[in-house]
């Protein structure tokens, strides 16, 4: 039972971690929280569904195509929408929630009922120790690892990635040394959309996809990001895994009804005890 819960929790935790990365990327750059992140995850799942229903693609190209489309969508929305919301965080919070409502209900028009996702990852049952789980769980974990390694490589070794880090550290100074700040912000949104959408495709085959699937996942991924440190990429990944495992264990051993409570209680305790999160660094203003 423990193995089963642990592996299930790790897979869910990976999803929280990847969606949470979207929050972290935007937060590091702008000190804003994009509350449409969960809805982008949902749109990603439906994007994957629409493509997989029409063309038979293997897993990797499918993930790549969805990521690319979501990346473009993020860039476009940054240019048209987000750029007008940078006044202060209240405006950004409400504006992005409004965008989330638009996305949810636009998808709802086309898919009012939950839809099964094609089994793009195959449907073998794998056994490790006493735990039996679908092959798709394995894919979720592997894809997350690959995604994180790719992101790390991009931030550490490419010129564009270093530019993004510079903007995150201090946009004004990055601008004076020749980084195109506006483009870096647009790329940040593109990246955050891409990772969330890929997470949507990863989770699709495990459950049904529905227009409201992003609401709870988005908020839990957000809790995960805050728990691990919303300005730290390793922190967010750690936070996602910890929350995924803890809530699965709580659901298995304590009560399945209060499973959803775990993430938010952790969020509240963490904010009061240590607002920067486990691995976060900069201290928030707390006079």
């Amino acid at each position: 039972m423990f193995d089963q819960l642990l592996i299930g929790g790790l897979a869910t935790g990976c999803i929280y971690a990847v969606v949470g990365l979207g929050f972290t990327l935007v937060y590091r750059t702008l000190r804003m929280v994009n509350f449409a992140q969960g809805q982008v995850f949902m749109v990603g799942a439906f994007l994957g569904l629409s493509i997989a229903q029409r063309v038979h693609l293997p897993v990797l190209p499918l993930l790549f195509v969805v990521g690319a489309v979501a990346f473009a969508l993020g860039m476009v929305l940054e240019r048209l929408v987000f750029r007008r919301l940078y006044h202060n965080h209240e405006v950004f919070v409400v504006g992005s929630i409004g965008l989330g409502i638009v996305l949810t209900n636009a998808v709802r028009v086309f898919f009012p009922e939950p839809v099964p996702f094609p089994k793009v990852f195959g449907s073998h049952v794998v056994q490790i120790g006493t735990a039996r789980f679908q092959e798709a769980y394995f894919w979720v974990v592997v894809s997350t690892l690959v995604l994180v390694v790719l992101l790390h490589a991009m931030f550490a070794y490419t010129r564009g990635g270093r530019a993004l880090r510079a903007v995150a550290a201090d946009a004004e100074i990055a601008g004076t040394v020749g980084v195109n700040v506006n483009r870096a912000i647009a790329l940040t949104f593109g990246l955050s959309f891409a990772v969330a959408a890929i997470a949507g495709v990863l989770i699709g085959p495990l459950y049904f996809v529905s227009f409201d699937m992003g609401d709870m996942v988005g908020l839990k991924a957000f809790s995960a990001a805050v728990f691990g440190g919303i300005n730290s990429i390793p922190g967010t990944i750690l936070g996602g895994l910890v929350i995924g495992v803890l809530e699965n264990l709580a659901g298995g051993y304590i009560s399945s009804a209060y499973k959803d409570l775990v993430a938010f209680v952790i969020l509240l305790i963490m904010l009061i005890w240590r607002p920067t999160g486990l691995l976060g660094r900069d201290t928030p203003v707390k006079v």
Partner: protein
Amino acid sequence: MTTSEVLRRWWVGAAVLAALLAFPAFAPRYIVHIANFILIYTLPVIGLGFLTGFTGRVSLAQGALFGVGAYTTALLTTKFGWTPIATFFPSVLMTVVLAVALGGAAVRLAGLYFVMATIGIQQIVWIVLMNWIDLTNGPQGVRSIPAIGLGDYRLETPQKFYFLTLAVAVISYILAKRVIGSRLGLYLRALSDDQLAASSVAVEVGRAKVTALALSAAWAGAGGFLYAHYVRYVHPDMFGLEASVLYLVMSMFGGYRSIAGMVLATGLLESATEYLRPFGEFRMIAYGMILLLGMMFFPKGILTIVRRRTSARTAGKT
């Protein structure tokens, strides 16, 4: 302000009040029904104004606090047989206690960190309402909540209920104005502008912030009380994050630190569900667009258009 201006203000106030009092005699029942909701929602919205507008702390937990007020009275009247009026103070008190217990430590957090904490509070309350089935009936909600009544006279129709909501809304408006005009209001504005400067002139920042939180919860609890006895049915989904977002938008759309603006925005947005009806299944998309476009183009509230014009008009006078 000159005496003639004070006099004019009184006249305007009296005229608005007279119009509101006469309103249900002319308006159809359904319009009165909507008006009741608008008046009820002004309470959580004004309450949120204490935190958001005056203290600079954006809360996304007001829907949950409103729900705590509504559930307290719903459970006391249906499960313990209290008369509705007797549950008013317990509902308000319960809301305040819960808000301070959950949010008292979080209110010292600055800016976005407080928003994050209130999202946690909102979700915790909602999940508990949904899952503590023995107490709250969970997803079934609480049905047949009694109507408020004095003796045999029971406020069962929208028209009868209207005068109660109007009275409560007017009292809440006047009280809120008083609070804002008081020393506490001054403290709150000071600490929202510059917390360090405020604390240096002996404003007890921590206590002022917790007081603002308690006040906002009290207003939410009172609103929840009215709501429960008007709709006479409560369900956890009525008090979810969507409701909190709605109250936040209502308190922001009106403009910065204007209680009248908050009331106006509540009216505009609450009736939105009515005038968005022609959009049919695209209604919620239109609603999301209103939030998004409103924030994109009027980040300081819709009333800024009106104010810009009046200030341009009065600018020549001085």
